[in-house]
């Protein structure tokens, strides 16, 4: 087990492994999304309070979950990278960041879309909304820092430090806003009126959440392959690979 771990933590082997995994995760993500959307738009009944607008939930909630979860995964990789100076973990967190930012943006966007019919405003300065916005800012800050640093080693470490500090901040933001009056919470309870409807919705959301997971994994692996190639381009195995390809 531990031998396999070390073997796959070398970029050369991981490159191959990731290459095999990408299509699997990619296709599953696609199929699950189709199923999820089918449930969302054809099976799930219209909510008698919110009308059709509530169907945004099937994208909104998985996206919101994913954006937070991916941040934590990045923090995990950064901690490993700083502790053991493993090249691959820095690459992983670099590969994950754009996807995390994308989901953070999606949750903001869909939430705003939903807010207009529900609350009569695109945006309110509610606790959850604000913390989602801050999370998005954190993602942007991290990517901006990477973009500003040309030196790869410096960029990796500086980015990792920032991610970790931000991670301490995420729960703080989350709890601190409890002291604020909030608008967001109430809505989620009104969904669970009839149990049958709730269970179908739950399934739809679950399927969409898993699809988001698989999508994230596939995209991150795809991106990390690119990063590996770029960083190791002076090594023998990459040179051979590129020769074989062309």
């Amino acid at each position: 087990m531990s031998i396999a771990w070390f073997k796959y933590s070398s970029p050369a082997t991981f490159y191959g492994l990731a290459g095999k995994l990408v299509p699997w995760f990619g296709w599953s993500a696609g199929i699950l999304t189709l199923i999820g959307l089918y449930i969302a738009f054809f099976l799930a009944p219209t909510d008698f309070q919110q009308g059709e607008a509530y169907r945004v939930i099937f994208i909104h909630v998985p996206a919101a979950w994913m954006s937070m979860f991916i941040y934590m995964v990045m923090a995990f990789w950064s901690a490993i990278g700083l502790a053991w100076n493993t090249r691959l973990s820095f690459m992983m967190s670099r590969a994950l960041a754009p996807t995390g930012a994308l989901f953070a943006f999606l949750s903001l966007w869909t939430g705003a879309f939903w807010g207009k019919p529900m609350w009569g405003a695109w945006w309110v300065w509610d606790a959850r909304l604000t913390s989602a916005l801050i999370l998005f800012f954190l993602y942007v800050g991290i990517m901006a820092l990477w973009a500003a640093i040309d030196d790869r080693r410096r960029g990796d470490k500086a980015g990792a430090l920032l991610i970790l500090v931000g991670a301490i901040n995420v729960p703080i933001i989350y709890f601190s806003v409890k002291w604020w009056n909030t608008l967001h919470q109430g809505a989620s309870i009104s969904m669970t009126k009839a149990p049958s409807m709730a269970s179908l919705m739950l399934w739809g959301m679950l399927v969409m959440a898993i699809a988001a997971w698989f999508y994230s994994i596939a995209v991150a692996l795809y991106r990390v392959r690119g990063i590996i190639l770029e960083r190791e381009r002076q090594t023998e195995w990459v040179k051979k690979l590129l020769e074989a390809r062309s």
Partner: protein
Amino acid sequence: MTALATHYDPTRENDSFSPLRFLWTVIRRDMLLAARRRGDWLTSQFFFVMVVSMFPLGIGPEPEVLRMVGPGVVWVAALLASLLSLPRLFAEDYRDGSLEQMLLSPEPTVLVTLGKALAHWCIYGIPLLLITPLLGVQFSLPAEAIGVLVISLLIGTPILSLLGSIGAALTLGLRGGGVLLTLLILPLYVPALIFGAGAVDGALSGIGYSAHLSLLAAFLVLTLMVAPWVAASALKVSIE
């Protein structure tokens, strides 16, 4: 190895487009440099967004209050975003010696200051205009007020860049330049702020906004005529 080029080309001197061409060179140069610093101007826009978003956190979430303070907050944030980027207007060129080279150019120095101020506006001001509608929505401003806000910023942000270039030239190479700059320039910004935010308030309250906007435009014309010359003199003094 080196071939001495023609040192003095009389045909070039009589070229009446030369000032315009040089102005364009200066603007292009600064824009190229900004493009090289990938993400640099983007971050400046984010600063704007963040400052605006910070206020509701401090003030509280009541929509009516936010609607009232919204235009003021956006204007102050625009002002701060321009202030924050201004110290770098000449500072980097000064440090690496290329500002000296620009002063040694045969073209007049006023074109350098004008060009750099315009480039600053293109890089910092224009994207800001594109973001503003979104922020207006965040503060739940009505559509007309958002329109007026954008127009007031369209007229107002070049003023900020032009006046700012004076401050940047004056404080060049001084220790604590950034803060000193703020101190010098903020009072000059006040008219722009009052007319600009006033126009939006007028639109919100239905009083009308065209008087405010024309005053703002007059102020822009005035700045455009005066600021580059003052900045050029300040630059020469600072670099001695």
